[in-house]
């Protein structure tokens, strides 16, 4: 997966590239709009991450050029400005997502993965599985090691999300947004409580723990071998 970051602040750009590279993406970083636009049009990228304020050409102009060239690459905007008009303007021009600084890297990573996944057609699974945990999407049943686990509707959705995106660190805000449709910065520890309850049912009676907390970042479902 090839990503292009156009960000003029060296520190931000550097950390973004490092973070995305370590997450397994092939990332290129440029600091000015003119070069950025040239690369976006000629390079074969899977995703563009654009800052709005850039020297040379701003993020919107790049987006416009990309869309005018008939390219359908997903574009994620980063901006320090949070004016409603900005957001509307960006979305009208065909931006796919929008993050306002300060944002958490985990949030950015989750959004990048969502955007990249959107392109590919997800196969219609009937069940999801990790190790001995199995989730039957049709009968809406969860089993672990052959043992039936009773979950509430929301717990089921939460586990489904974790399973679908296994190995990815999911920030609390993303979980709140996807599972409960709460699209705002919620400063409650509800997600913590919900995860704890899910763990109680899914992990507590089994030696091999699957739900892990990544401190300060979110939660991840994966098999870890100690």
């Amino acid at each position, binding site marked *: 997966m090839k990503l292009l970051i156009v960000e003029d602040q060296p520190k931000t750009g550097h950390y973004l590239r490092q973070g995305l590279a370590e997450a397994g993406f092939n990332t290129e970083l440029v600091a000015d709009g003119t070069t950025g636009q040239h690369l976006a049009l000629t390079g074969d990228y899977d995703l563009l991450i654009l800052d709005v304020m850039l020297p040379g050409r701003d993020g919107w102009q790049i987006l416009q050029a990309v869309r005018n060239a008939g390219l359908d690459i997903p574009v994620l905007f980063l901006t320090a400005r949070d004016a409603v008009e900005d957001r509307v303007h960006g979305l009208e021009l065909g931006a796919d997502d929008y993050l306002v600084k300060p944002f958490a890297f985990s949030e950015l990573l989750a959004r990048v993965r969502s955007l990249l996944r959107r392109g590919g057609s997800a196969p219609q699974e009937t069940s999801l599985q990790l190790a001995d945990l199995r989730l039957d999407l049709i009968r809406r049943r969860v089993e672990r090691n052959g043992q039936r686990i009773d979950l509430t509707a929301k717990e089921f959705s939460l586990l489904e999300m974790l399973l679908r995106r296994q190995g990815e660190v999911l920030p609390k805000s993303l979980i709140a947004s996807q599972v409960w449709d709460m699209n705002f910065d919620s400063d409650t520890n509800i997600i913590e409580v919900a995860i704890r*309850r899910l763990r109680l049912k899914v992990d507590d009676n089994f030696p091999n723990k699957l739900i892990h907390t990544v401190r300060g970042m979110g939660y991840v479902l994966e098999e870890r071998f100690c």
Partner: protein
Amino acid sequence: MRRVSLATRLALLFAACTAVVSLLAGVLFNRASEAHFIELDQQLLDSKLVALRSVLQGADTLSLFTQREGQLREELRHQPDLALRISTVGGQNWFDGAPGITLPSSAGLYSLQSTGTDYRVYNAPLVAGKTDSPQLSLILDITHHQHFLERMQRLIWLTVGLSALATALLGAWAARSGLRPLRRMSEVAAGVSAHSLTQRLPQEQMPTELAELAQAFNAMLGRLDDAFQRLSAFSADIAHELRTPLSNLLTHTQVILTQPRPLEDYREALHSNLEELQWMAQLVNDMLYLAKADHGLLIPKREPLALADEADALLEFFAPLAEDVQVNMFRKGSAGTLGDRSMLRRALSNLLDNALRFTPQGGEISVSIVEEVQGVKLSVENTGEGIPQALLPRLFDRFYRADPARHEGSSEHAGLGLAITRSIVRAHGGTIRCESGTGWTRFLIELPTTN
């Protein structure tokens, strides 16, 4: 055009008024005295005419007249300012006491001027009622009258000038002292700065015309003061809120870096820093949200919402937390409205979050929705200790924490939740207030029916 001060303008107007009035009075007086002098002269000349007629009685020929001429001169000697001319119808002068003066020929009283002297001339026939008898012309020197009138006129002009000047000066003084409240007002206005917003105009000493203005001015100062107080308190609060996590970050990072440590310690330090940073980012985001609301940039979408569904979704969201602290949450009633789903969810979530923190174990939280003609009422009520009446208006203030023990910089939120809720409700054109009594607290949102 040059701007003339109000006081100067008033003074000049006063002066002009006085000048006009005194000029009118002077002219009238002048006319009256002139008429009076004419009347006096008429009387004098009438009496003289009678005397002269009696002296000249029967002297209707020149020879008879000559006989009486001595007697006539004797009579005239008593009156040095009076001259006499006697002329016949034919134009012959029998007697001429004032040669060189051209006189009107017909009978009557005339005023005329000749060689710098003013005269009053009275023509009358020698024999009353007989037009063909010789005509007597009595010529009275009235120079002293004219002098008097001229003096009078000069006096009038002087009076006009002086009184105009006096009123101008007095008027200027009066206007200045009359306008003193205005000046005081402008002094106060000029003295207003960020540090002296507490100054007010003394309203009760103001004249009625200015009282309203003073009141408006004071009200404006009050609003400014209030807004400024809030703003400066807000800035101070931000600084204060950020200081604790910043100082934690600084200290912690410096301490960690002072000596080599096991890897785990660095990781731990970064984690701890991350928590502080997340808290700060949240704070900044909340502040930006409130700033947007303050600038009217919080524009809610207008999607049709079933409030009961929204409330249920939130209750479901909060359910794990509520079960943890054994609080029973339920919803009653339903209503539809137009609004922004995610904004209203955020508003309601802050209220529920707040309620959960203040509801004791085993208590309950109820969300009730009532549809009324003028709008919908949505309330979140929880059991538990009430909030003192005095604190109710402050609940929605930024950074206000009902529980002072909750220390700043903790992972708890910064006390912006209710302020954000209020901003959202206001952006929807609604109102929010808090009511509390013994054992219960209720936040009541009223959203108008929009059409």
